[in-house]
């Protein structure tokens, strides 16, 4: 808990921390349009403690519709914790998380998914014994309404949704480039294919916001380039992308804006160029003492 309390409010620059008027409870309240686009997801003073460990310390930032947003930082900076708070895995100790203007704190994980936030995992977490196609169909099922009874008696809704789900899932497998592996048990896919499959599965839930947790981990440069291409393609379909990544070059190359975390605190935010030259970021990555910066 003895975090270096050196800087907090001074980097509340342009984009983030527009507390607006806390309209969270008023449901359809439109978030205030930001300079470059509507705010899609807003983290406001989010703190998350595990006992004495402060995993996130008063973190605030906002994602805008249609951008590729990078979340970077050294190991243990709280990037994945941030993801977990957004997707309902952890509940923040304090602070607000709003998605499309509505608070999502305390919502169930599957509700958040249906609401439009999908994610992949740092360590691939597919359903290993199910085929690639079935994996994606689980994601597509998120918006289906086939009940146990209509599945049991093969009612019209079952056929309709089953066909829809299958077509959509095959389409997504094609989109990520592994449609030739559709019938293969996902355990048997190569590592890169598994990563792509996870993205397809997440996209099948029709997300507005796709959170990718270190999608390039373990990739060689060629694979990374392909992944970049895929991320851009996803953004071009209208999905906002939140990207956690270690590889600075990859992040700099693809993101529109970046937030840098260190020890659970936000130390910088801005465009890739701004962040790259930020002395605090350089210090965090290269280990220069903060006070020397």
């Amino acid at each position, binding site marked *: 808990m003895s975090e270096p309390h050196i800087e907090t409010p001074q980097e509340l620059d342009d984009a983030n921390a527009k507390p607006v008027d806390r309209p969270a409870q008023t449901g359809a309240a439109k978030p205030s349009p930001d300079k470059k686009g509507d705010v899609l997801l807003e983290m406001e003073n989010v703190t998350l403690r595990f006992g004495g460990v402060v995993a996130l310390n008063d973190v605030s930032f906002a994602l805008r519709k249609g951008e590729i947003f990078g979340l970077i930082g050294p190991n243990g900076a709280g990037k994945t914790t941030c993801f977990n708070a957004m*997707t*309902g*895995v952890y509940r923040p100790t304090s602070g607000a998380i709003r998605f499309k203007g509505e608070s999502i704190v305390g919502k*169930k*994980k*599957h509700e958040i*998914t*249906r609401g439009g936030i*999908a*994610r992949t*995992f740092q360590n691939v*977490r*597919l*359903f*290993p*014994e*199910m*085929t690639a196609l*079935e994996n994606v*169909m*689980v*994601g597509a*099922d*998120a*918006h*289906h309404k*086939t009940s*146990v009874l209509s*599945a*049991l*008696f*093969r009612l019209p809704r*079952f056929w309709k*949704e*089953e066909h829809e*789900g299958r077509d959509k899932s095959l389409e997504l497998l094609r989109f990520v480039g592994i449609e030739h*592996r559709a*019938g*293969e*048990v996902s*355990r*048997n896919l*190569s590592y890169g294919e598994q990563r792509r499959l996870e993205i397809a*599965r*997440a996209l099948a*839930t029709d997300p507005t916001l796709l959170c990718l947790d270190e999608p390039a981990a373990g990739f060689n440069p060629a694979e990374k380039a392909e992944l970049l291409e895929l991320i851009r393609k996803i953004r071009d379909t209208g999905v906002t992308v939140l990207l956690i990544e270690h590889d600075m070059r990859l992040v700099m190359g693809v993101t529109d804006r970046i937030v840098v975390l260190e020890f659970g605190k936000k130390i910088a935010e801005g465009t890739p160029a701004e962040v790259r030259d930020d002395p605090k970021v350089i210090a965090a990555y290269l280990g220069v003492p903060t006070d020397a910066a």
Partner: protein
Amino acid sequence: MSESVAATSAKKSWRGNGGVRGWYGRQSLVVRVVLGIVFAVLAVLLPYVGDVPVIGPQIITVGIDWPSALFNMSYYVLLALGLNVVVGFAGLLDLGYVGFFAVGAYTVALFTSPDSVLHTEWKWVAAIPVALAVTMVSGLILGWPTLRLRGDYLAIVTLGFAEIIRIFATSSETLRGDRGFSDLPHPPGDYSDGKAIFGVADATPYYWLGLAVIIVVIFAVRNLDRSRVGRSWLAIREDEEAAEIMGVRTIKYKLWAFAIGAFIGGLGGVMFAGQQGFMNSQTFQLQFSILVLAGVVMGGSGNIFGAILGGALISYIPDRLRGIEDPIWHTDLFGFRFAIFGAVIIAIMIFRPQGLIPSRRRAMELKDREKEVAPQ
């Protein structure tokens, strides 16, 4: 290196050399339907297998009449089918499955037996819907508090559930303990000469009834398996948290698995009560649960036909041992059934760890592990 190797080996293993089922999967719908009908007809004719020269007498049981053995097999198969939904599909390790069998049988007994405190003495058929409703509710009662439990912990709680039911049945005045219920009515129906179809002497009609129920249950479970419901169950079994993050309502589908499993188990209990005419608290021993679970795992957890084969075997093997004298102590081999069982299970687990008829997916997984151990 790995990419092309993985691609070719995968091409080979997907259906390519899928054995009998790989072949079956490639057949047209007509062939599959015809094969299904052939199997059904063979199953219907099973009571007469003793008349087949040479092999027939080897198959039928000696210490118990063959139709009764077949009927026993039919309700064990039902139980295995139900437990397969809970354990094989949803991955919820349930060791107290006999509890649902007991709830089904006891509900029938309470409403139909003249010994019952209710004094309703309904017909067997009239008691069925009530019994199935009660078992489904009992499935939810067990499922609800155990939703947060997984693996070993769930197994222990379900074990407790079955024991609670057995001990309650033993000590409760209403459920009559060891005295049990007698004069339970049989299913309805008469032959043209006025004799009851479902009598005491011949168990063959009961077997056919059981077979009909099994066929219906097979279709029901298969329909669920190949749908959003089955996918949700598998996803929960594979990674419950990931499933929920992908939008699966895990609580709902776990409860459905319990309720459907309980329903099928209750169906087994209803059949049992309708045939036996008498039952008491000694009928529902814990070993029963373990035995059915062993059957499911042995046959191939997660595969409907594996569960059927496993369920049939756990009933058939002991019945087949009945009335055979062992050469050393000259006692009935039936007394050694658990030892023999143990040996059979160990043998199967050594030579065919994925079960006799594994689910396609599970077989692939094991093959994959082998590859990891011994790479090309």
